[in-house]
């Protein structure tokens, strides 16, 4: 047994080990706490959690599940980007190829089902936070960050919906983006937009209103597909990632996962 211990010490004392781990093996509780706090990876998890924080019947683990599903969507989405081209010539056939020709044809289905699951998980997380009163001070700010994250989750689903470029996608986005026509002052059918005139020429019309800026044209077309692709793969995930960092940080700073009332 002495030789096993000798090997262990040899590894721990080697230059490679020491270059990776800044401190030796912590042998007291105090040193263990400091080791967790001093590590970039380990400090992402709190040193101590409430007993209620690890009780599934209390948290439902829906916040963690939402984040896990976001990671699943990131990984599977990144893999889909190797095969999918966001142009009207190729988008639909590439989706077909992802199912029929790409190795492990399940990748696109995982992305799709993961998206559905994430929307459900985010709603359940919000429901749990509401029912446990975890939105109350000092957590009001984090509740608002969470509401924005909910909207971003729905926008990710909405922008991703167009990418298969089938009839369902095109008409769903036609209908969904029509809401932007009713933007007050900025949509061509919105309230007050008719008041913005130069002489008797309306300045807000189908060719320059909020919907036009959103979809890059008067109707859903090649510009919309490319636009939604960029929003779906880059813009919204970046904003959501930034807000998630704030969200998790505030959970810790507001006293950890809230306990039972």
């Amino acid at each position, binding site marked *: 047994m002495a030789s096993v211990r000798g090997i262990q010490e040899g590894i721990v004392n080697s230059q490679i080990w020491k270059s990776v781990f800044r401190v030796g093996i912590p042998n007291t509780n105090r040193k263990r706490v400091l080791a967790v706090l001093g590590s970039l990876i380990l400090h992402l998890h709190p040193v101590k959690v409430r007993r209620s924080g690890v009780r599934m019947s209390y948290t439902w683990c829906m916040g963690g599940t939402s984040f896990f599903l976001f990671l699943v969507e990131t990984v599977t989405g990144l893999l889909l980007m190797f095969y999918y081209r966001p142009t009207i010539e190729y988008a639909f056939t590439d989706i077909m190829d992802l199912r029929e020709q790409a190795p492990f044809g399940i990748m696109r289905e995982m992305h799709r089902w993961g998206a559905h699951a994430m929307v459900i998980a985010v709603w359940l997380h919000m429901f749990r936070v509401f029912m446990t009163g975890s939105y109350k001070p000092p957590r009001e700010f984090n509740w608002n960050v969470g509401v924005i994250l909910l909207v971003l989750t729905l926008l990710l689903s909405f922008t991703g919906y167009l990418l298969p470029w089938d009839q369902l996608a095109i008409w769903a986005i036609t209908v969904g983006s029509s809401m932007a026509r009713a933007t007050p002052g900025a949509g061509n059918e919105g309230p007050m937009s008719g008041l913005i005139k130069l002489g008797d020429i309306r300045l807000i019309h189908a060719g*320059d209103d909020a919907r036009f800026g959103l979809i*890059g*044209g008067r109707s859903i077309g090649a510009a919309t597909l490319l636009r939604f692709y960029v929003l779906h793969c880059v813009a919204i995930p970046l904003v959501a990632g930034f807000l998630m960092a704030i969200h998790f940080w505030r959970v810790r700073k507001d006293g950890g996962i809230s306990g039972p009332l």
Partner: protein
Amino acid sequence: MSEEITPYQVVPKTPLAGSAAADIREQGEMTRRSFPFVITAAWLALTAALGGLASVLGRFMFPNVLFEPVQKFKAGFVADYAVGEVDERWKDKFGIWLVRTEETVYALISVCTHLGCTPNWLPTQNKFKCPCHGSGYYKSGVNFEGPTPRPLERAKISIDPSDGQIVVDKSKQFHQERGEWTDPESFIKL
């Protein structure tokens, strides 16, 4: 008592006018009097820069060139269209139904006024029917069923005096609910 020069004081070399910038240049540090001007100018500059950046980003999302069918096109001669029929030959390309009646020709825009889908013309039932949510319109374009709040829109239509062809211009629409279908540009009088 001799005058001591601390590291924070610089002896003025040339007497300048008492502007905030001159104060700073002379004395090497901000004074209580110059600070509000400097900080106000700095905030204004930052606001202007961020405002300019936001406008540029916003404008960038509105394309100058569209790869869409043109809004104005020639649709042949009145004689090409049968009386009492809804003609679908321009629907795919330009999103227009041309309808000829006994006395008029008008151009209906094939966009459902509910949420923007493309309705179908059902000749056997003599109506337009939208597949998305079931809005129905008469041949005239007036709605009679489903969730849509108002009739289909008509496009500007005229006869080109040089060759006698029908010209349809989708950039100008006529709304029935605003009483615009009586406008002489909204139909061709036969």
